[in-house]
């Protein structure tokens, strides 16, 4: 029983970076901007989240804001190069990925210098919800977590409502499906693309900051460990919809936690195999669900009003 509670608690805890990054990806994609720089943006978000918090004397809030700011700047760059300059989204995304990866290790070296052991920042505290956290079992699994766990769940529900139950959501989705149609009805396609790409970038940056702020208390090189890439797969198999993104994140987080538990449990399987599990799971899940999911019709393309089609 105790180990089940721990497993579920850890799963919810590990779900957060997946949820934040995938919702950020989904949001941009709904306006047609396909971000592939998650890994880089998460790394730079982790790096700056750590440094921001460190320089502000351990303030978590400053760290979070720094990570979201840098994520937003990356999102803005993606929007500018693709929407205003009409450059290829994948090429720009990959460039941003490498810039982010490079900056993530460069900045700590410049700010903190090379030290034998990295300084630590305080990690996010659990905020048990009064009354609810006293419920046996559920209280500990669901209602005594850090604030970003609650935020990521509320964000998913909020995004679902926004996309499918509001006029602005209807307009946003139309930009990602058929910008010709949206434009002909007076909808500002560029504005939608800019806003969602920036907000999406901020969420992805925040997802990165979660890693030092909850897991390790410090930044280490390459600490995102492929979660950014998994996010892309996750967003696809969730069909670019907020609620399936949440369920999918739980699934990936569950596998991640399970693979660490097995390692710790000393089962006689070389740990390299266990590290493969999340990626193998991705391929298997994609094989079975991918055909049924749909993607926004204009995903990854740039819209140019005066371009004449042949």
């Amino acid at each position, binding site marked *: 029983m105790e180990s089940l509670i721990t497993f579920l608690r850890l799963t919810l805890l590990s779900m957060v970076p997946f949820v934040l990054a995938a919702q950020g990806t989904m949001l941009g994609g709904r306006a047609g901007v396909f971000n592939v720089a998650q890994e880089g943006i998460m790394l730079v978000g982790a790096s700056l989240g750590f440094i921001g918090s460190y320089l502000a004397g351990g303030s978590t809030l400053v760290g979070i804001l720094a990570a979201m700011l840098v994520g937003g700047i990356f999102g803005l760059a993606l929007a500018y190069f693709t929407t205003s300059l009409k450059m290829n989204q994948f090429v720009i995304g990959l460039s941003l990925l490498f810039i982010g990866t490079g900056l993530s290790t460069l900045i700590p070296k410049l700010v903190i210098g090379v030290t034998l052991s990295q300084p630590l920042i305080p990690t996010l505290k659990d905020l048990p919800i009064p009354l609810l956290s006293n419920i046996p079992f559920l209280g500990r699994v669901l209602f005594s977590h850090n604030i970003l766990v609650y935020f990521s769940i509320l964000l998913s529900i909020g995004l679902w409502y926004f996309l499918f*139950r*509001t006029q602005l959501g209807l307009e946003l989705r139309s930009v990602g499906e058929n910008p010709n149609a*949206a*434009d*002909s*009805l*007076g909808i500002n396609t560029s504005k939608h693309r800019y806003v969602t790409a920036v907000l999406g970038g901020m969420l992805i940056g925040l997802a990165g900051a979660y890693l030092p702020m909850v897991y390790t208390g410090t930044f280490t090189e390459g600490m995102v460990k492929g979660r950014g890439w998994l996010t892309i797969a996750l967003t696809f198999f969730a069909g670019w919809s907020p609620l399936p993104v949440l369920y999918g994140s739980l699934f990936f987080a569950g596998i991640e936690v399970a693979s660490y538990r097995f390692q710790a449990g000393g089962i006689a399987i070389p740990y390299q195999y266990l590290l493969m599990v999340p990626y193998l799971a991705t391929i298997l899940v994609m094989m079975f669900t991918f055909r049924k999911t749909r993607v926004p019709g204009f995903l990854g393309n740039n819209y140019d*009003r*005066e371009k004449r089609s042949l």
Partner: protein
Amino acid sequence: MEKEAILELRNIRKVFDKTVALDSVSFSLYPGEIHGLLGGNGAGKTTLMNILYGLYRKDDGEIDFHGKKLNIQGPRDAINHGIGMVHQHFLQIGNYTVLENIVLGTNVAHPGTMKLDAEANKIIELGNRFRLPVDPNAVVDTLPVGTRQKVEILKALYRGVEVLILDEPTTNLTPQEVDDLFESLRVIVNEGLSIVFITHKLREVLHVCDRITVLREGRNITSLTRAEASEEIFVRAMVGDQMNIEDSVYFSHGSMANTAVDESSNPALEMQNVSWKTKEGISRLSGLNFQIKRGELFGVAGVAGNGQRELAECVTGVIIPTDGRILMDGRDVTALPVCELLKGRISYIPEDRLHDGFLPKANVAQNLILGYHRQKPYCEGVFIKWNTVYDKVRDAIGEYKIKTNGPEDPGGNLSGGNIQRVMIARAFSMDSQVLVAHNPTRGLDIPSMDFVYNKMLERKKTGAATLLISEDLDELLLICDRVAVLYRGQIVGILDRKDFDKYAIGRLMSGIQAEETADLRAAS
């Protein structure tokens, strides 16, 4: 009756890269009229109206609306001023409902919850008033083309437009649907709105328009009322002096098509129970049976998406039928690879020239021999004989009037109409037993269409057969010996030339007869 024009476009000029699309074009619209904007492909009709609707910026000229100068920056300005446009390729979100498509971009009563009952009622009311009935909750992708067009018109009416622009609205409609559309347009103008009707079809213009303006190559040619107009005048206005109208097939009303068909020998092409299913098991063609005789021009009519593409690809070997046999000259060719079929048996003008027929990065010469590049005279052993190729290609460029800087010009530099000419030149460059032509005249001007018709009719003399799959019913009736109608992957009727009747074919195209027979079968 001197009425005040509500809309005046004066001396509009538009240049794309280096091509002048519109050169000082003027146009005026009176309240309560249907004004036809007539011209061939590339005449600038759509460009002119896209400028009015704010999709393109004009390089020069003025627009007056209600006597005041109008400055339009984008579609939103046009809509706010009461100008609406229905594009030829519908601008709809396929996975949205009719209701969502119509209210998109307007301010709804409950933007925070999207309870759209009031909006749905307004759409139903508009539909009844203008004879455009639609179900607001249907998903647009599931609707037939005719209904999707009603949605598109309702979209403009819902926004309370005064001026409605329709770009080639009859493409893909059956003759019955065209009549319904014209009836609705009358109701709309009777309520005081004005309509601009863009088309290249003379007969439609004469049938429904009050006034007509003709454009050619981006210039005004003439403006006439219907009383002054005749087909003859428009023909000359549209084609200028580039062709001899008396000798043309296009204006011959079908008298040029002869019906000499070689009945004695094996049919050039025989389809025996040919069916094709997608990987998911969805049937696209079921049980096709027909024969095309030597020297016959066999037409296939139908609303787009009823299996035409699959039929063309089965015959040309691109896809292999999941059931049934295809015979050519009595020989089974069902599973022969495409490269074998291309050796004198089949030539193909695909419908989707950009995806299936053309390499934009390759040059014109390479595009012109594509598919035949393994055969003599282009190839000897494993080497391509480029001298021969370039000689032949230069001839083709001249004969088919392909506008290009030469055989080494990249294909992507050609305009849509010229790419189509390359497709046609390639298909006619080698002798073939059966030519499969899918919408071969799409994007061509009248003289070029005429040229293609002549080429197809010439094939009859040598006993070669042609399978012409077209969405243009007039074209089929003009030159075919027989016309089959494809509906949901089945042939629902084959008519001989003497029985050709536009409305009968239209009924078959919309599946009416097919369902009646099915009902009879169910009853008995």
